[in-house]
């Protein structure tokens, strides 16, 4: 049992590390390199999934999804953040939980398990997304792409509103509440950025 937990913690750490790299890469995006950067990031994210998320999936069946959640949640949150960040940059929309779980269906062969991302890890991961979007908004404005900052602002506003309606209901809502506060701070920074451009 302890060995399984150890393996999960290690796999989760790798998922975190490589997901962070994907996020870092997407931040290099500008109007000229858009396509190539996104393609590369997509390939890298697929590798994170095949190489490392599979290691998490392999270990878990039945009640173990919840039993060992604390061991693997950091990695999965980071993966969600990376995938959602990439999706926003590509299509300007919010990656859904169903999208993610469909993409995990292909792990079934490799892991011989029906791995499903749980709702909490999805919400907590999406909560972190705002921080990245704030950085993106600020660099957009620096690059003179004011409209891009505005559309980020609108996206984050609606995401924040959706989450604020359910954040209290999330298990152990303390962690989610923390994220909501950080999210609001980020949103206000984005709004201030738009304001500064405007006046």
């Amino acid at each position, binding site marked *: 049992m302890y060995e399984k937990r150890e393996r999960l913690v290690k796999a989760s750490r790798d998922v975190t590390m490589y997901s962070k790299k994907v996020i870092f890469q997407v931040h290099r995006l500008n109007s000229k390199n858009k396509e190539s950067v996104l393609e590369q990031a997509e390939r890298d994210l697929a590798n994170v999934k095949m190489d490392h998320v599979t290691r998490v999936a392999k270990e878990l069946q039945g009640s173990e999804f919840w039993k060992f959640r604390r061991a693997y949640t950091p990695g999965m949150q980071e993966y969600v953040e990376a995938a959602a960040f990439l999706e926003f940059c590509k299509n300007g929309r919010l990656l859904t939980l169903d999208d993610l779980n469909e993409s995990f269906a292909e792990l079934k062969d490799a892991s011989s398990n029906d791995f499903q991302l749980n709702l909490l890890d999805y919400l907590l991961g999406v909560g972190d997304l705002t921080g990245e979007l704030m950085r993106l908004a600020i660099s957009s404005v620096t690059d003179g792409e004011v409209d891009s900052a505005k559309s980020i602002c*609108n996206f984050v*506003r609606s995401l*924040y*509103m959706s989450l*604020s*309606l359910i954040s*209290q209901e999330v298990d152990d809502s303390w962690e989610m509440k923390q994220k909501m506060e950080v999210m609001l701070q980020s949103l*206000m920074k984005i*709004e*201030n950025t*738009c*304001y500064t451009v*405007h*006046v």
Partner: protein
Amino acid sequence: RQFEEFRLQLEESGAVRERLRAIVSELDSATRLMQAQLLLIHHSRPSPEILSKIKAHTEGLRSIYGQLAEVLKSVPAQYYRYHDHWRNQTYTVVFLLAFIHWLETGGLLSHGDAAALLGLKDGEFGLDLEDYLVGLCNLSNELPRYVVNQVTTGDYDCAKRASVFLSDLYAAFRMLNLRNDLLRKRFDGMKYDLKKVEEVLYDVKI
């Protein structure tokens, strides 16, 4: 043996707390919903539709406070024993009502009017004065963000209105001899809100 009686007393007060908790959790849901709807006014000019949609909840709040009062009736003179249960939510409720009132009229929702909106009566289950004042501090905290967003949307007059309102509110608070507690701390923060709003007004003028 007296402990048997103690057990009953503690269970009774535990039961009161349980009932309060259940009602306050409804209060929590209601205010959360109102807050989420209020977020919309940051996204565009505040339309009468949005405001009246939020105001439509007031009825529900009144009924919830009525339930709290009902529970408290069963334990007379213990309002302040259980006060902590609904305190945080009441800050938010006052904030919401006062914000809407300001958006509609540009003026300050008085303590009496806030209590009346919630169906609270002094002597019975009233609106605690310090709760009301903390709610106004929350309003003050929200104004900088609101002004920034409104100016971005193109409503440049908003900064002037908020600056006048806030500096009056600040001056009024200044005259109060506040204890060294939460309210005092929250009031100390009001200075920064005012400064921020004045800076926006300055940016607009320049």
